[in-house]
């Protein structure tokens, strides 16, 4: 099957500053998340996909067609930009209807589709209010509404959940998942990890303009095995525990948190560490209150992979 979105050797600089470098990827239907810190190159990649920027090297294709100056593909694509920018004088309904008219829909269709999109993002009751009077969350939702109003097959959403209250966030996440279930291709960028985890397990980690890892959440987790693990143990005898473990060759580092009566071990062999810990617990009167892995989440994977 041909991928919906393809990037081949995609590179882009802003003068001497690198935007993205040698991005090669294929994106198929479903939700794919671009994850990376600010300035990682997520927005540059999305701007190339939406025809705002031209790649210096390589090319981006959507539905097998080149993106730059190719207006045909834009009737099948919806884009939610990151910036909080609008035609402020317009009401929510006028904003959506106006943008829909650029697709060639007649006035009645524009109005119907605009109202439908406003319903979806739960803004129907403020449809006639000027966008300038909307709250941050409402503005974020109307931005999403303009991306989905024409029922596109591909959705490119740049930080679509930022500024939303938890309730709206949950609603939008549900909506995006419904698009996925309808067979659409959704590319979403975020630097807020729980949001990404709530949306998809298909993740692309991007840092300093390069893709540093790609895969589902489990694949990313596997990557962690090539990196040290952190295990935090809270115990009244945390010093004794540290002394006992200190000689083990798979142990890389130890750090103390005396105020919490805890010790953090860093190991590159989690299995051997836990085997030894079990032995110790059986053979000595060590009391353990809590064992946690501070790095057992997406943020930790990301931090490891970018070498934080």
């Amino acid at each position, binding site marked *: 099957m041909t991928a919906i979105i393809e990037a081949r050797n995609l590179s882009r600089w802003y003068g001497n500053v690198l935007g993205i470098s040698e991005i090669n990827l294929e994106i198929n239907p479903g939700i794919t998340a671009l994850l990376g810190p600010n300035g990682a190159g997520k927005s540059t990649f999305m701007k190339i996909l939406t025809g*705002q*920027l031209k790649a210096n090297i390589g090319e981006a294709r959507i539905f097998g067609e080149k993106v730059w*100056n190719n*207006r045909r593909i*834009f009737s099948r694509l919806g884009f939610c930009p990151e*910036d909080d*920018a609008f035609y402020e004088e317009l009401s929510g309904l006028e904003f959506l209807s106006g943008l829909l008219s650029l697709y*060639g829909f007649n006035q009645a269709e524009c109005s119907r589709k605009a109202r439908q999109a406003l319903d979806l993002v739960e803004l129907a009751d403020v449809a006639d209010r000027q966008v300038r009077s909307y709250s941050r969350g409402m503005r974020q939702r109307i931005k999403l509404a303009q991306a989905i109003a024409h029922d596109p097959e591909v959705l490119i959403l740049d930080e679509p959940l930022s500024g939303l209250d938890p309730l709206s966030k949950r609603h939008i996440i549900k909506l995006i998942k419904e698009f996925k279930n309808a067979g659409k291709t959704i590319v979403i960028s975020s630097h807020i990890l729980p949001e990404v985890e709530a949306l998809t397990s298909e993740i692309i980690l991007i840092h300093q303009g390069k893709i540093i890892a790609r895969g589902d959440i489990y694949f990313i987790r596997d990557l962690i095995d090539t990196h040290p693990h952190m295990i935090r143990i809270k115990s009244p005898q945390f010093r004794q525990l540290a002394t006992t473990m200190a000689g083990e060759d798979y142990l890389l580092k130890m750090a103390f948190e005396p105020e919490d009566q805890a010790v953090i071990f860093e190991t590159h062999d989690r299995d051997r560490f836990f085997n030894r810990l079990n032995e110790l617990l059986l053979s000595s009167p060590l009391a353990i209150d809590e064992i946690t892995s501070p790095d057992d989440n997406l943020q930790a994977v990301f931090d490891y992979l970018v070498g934080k």
Partner: protein
Amino acid sequence: MTTEIKRVFSFYFFLKKKSSRTKIFFLLSSAAILLAVVIRVYRLAGHWAENSQIIFQNILMVFFLQFLIVILALFYGTSIVPEELEGKTWPYLSSRPVSKAAIIIGKYLSSLAVTSIMLLSALLLSYFILNLDRDFQLKDIWTVVSYSLVLLLGLAAYLSFFTFLSTWLAKPILLGLAFGFGWENVIQYFPGTTQKLSIVHYLKSLLPQYTSASGRLSFLFIRLEPTSDWLAILILLLITVVFLGLAALLFSNKEYLIQD
């Protein structure tokens, strides 16, 4: 592409009708109406005996020709691209199925439509306020129609030039100001062919009273070496088409970055 231009035109005409900029410039253009009312009242009180046609020609030359059409074209034309970039609304346009040339031409036409409405309403109202009396003749209607057509031609040409500047420069307003109120004002006093390197030269050539050397503002007419009517019209149309074409071409191939 015509349908795409129509779509862009409709959207932006609607948008411009609602914008606060339009309200401000509508008020500014109404200054001519206010001036006409004041003069009319003054004349009714028997203070200003000069022919009202001559008075209107002075308003036409100073306010409409050398100020209003230039300032309207300058502010609407030079903002065509920067307003999308500075307002960060460019992604909404660039991700729609309309060509970039259609965006420029559609936005140009919507600006021309809005500014033409302002210009014509101010021009016609002020003319009739000053001249509608017992001496008013049918031929006076042709006079005001010809003034309107000349000013519309001028507006179209200036707007096209400033639209081109907006596709070319990040901050086109400064060069626009220098051109509209510097170059255009100074160059017309140069003798020979140099004065033909301005838009205002062809507009003055078309105005029926260009040879008038009477009145307080006669200095505005000195040194004008007029171009023939048809050639002036042709050159104004050519300026409009060439600069609009260049703007569309440049905009289609250039990349525009939103500054964070």
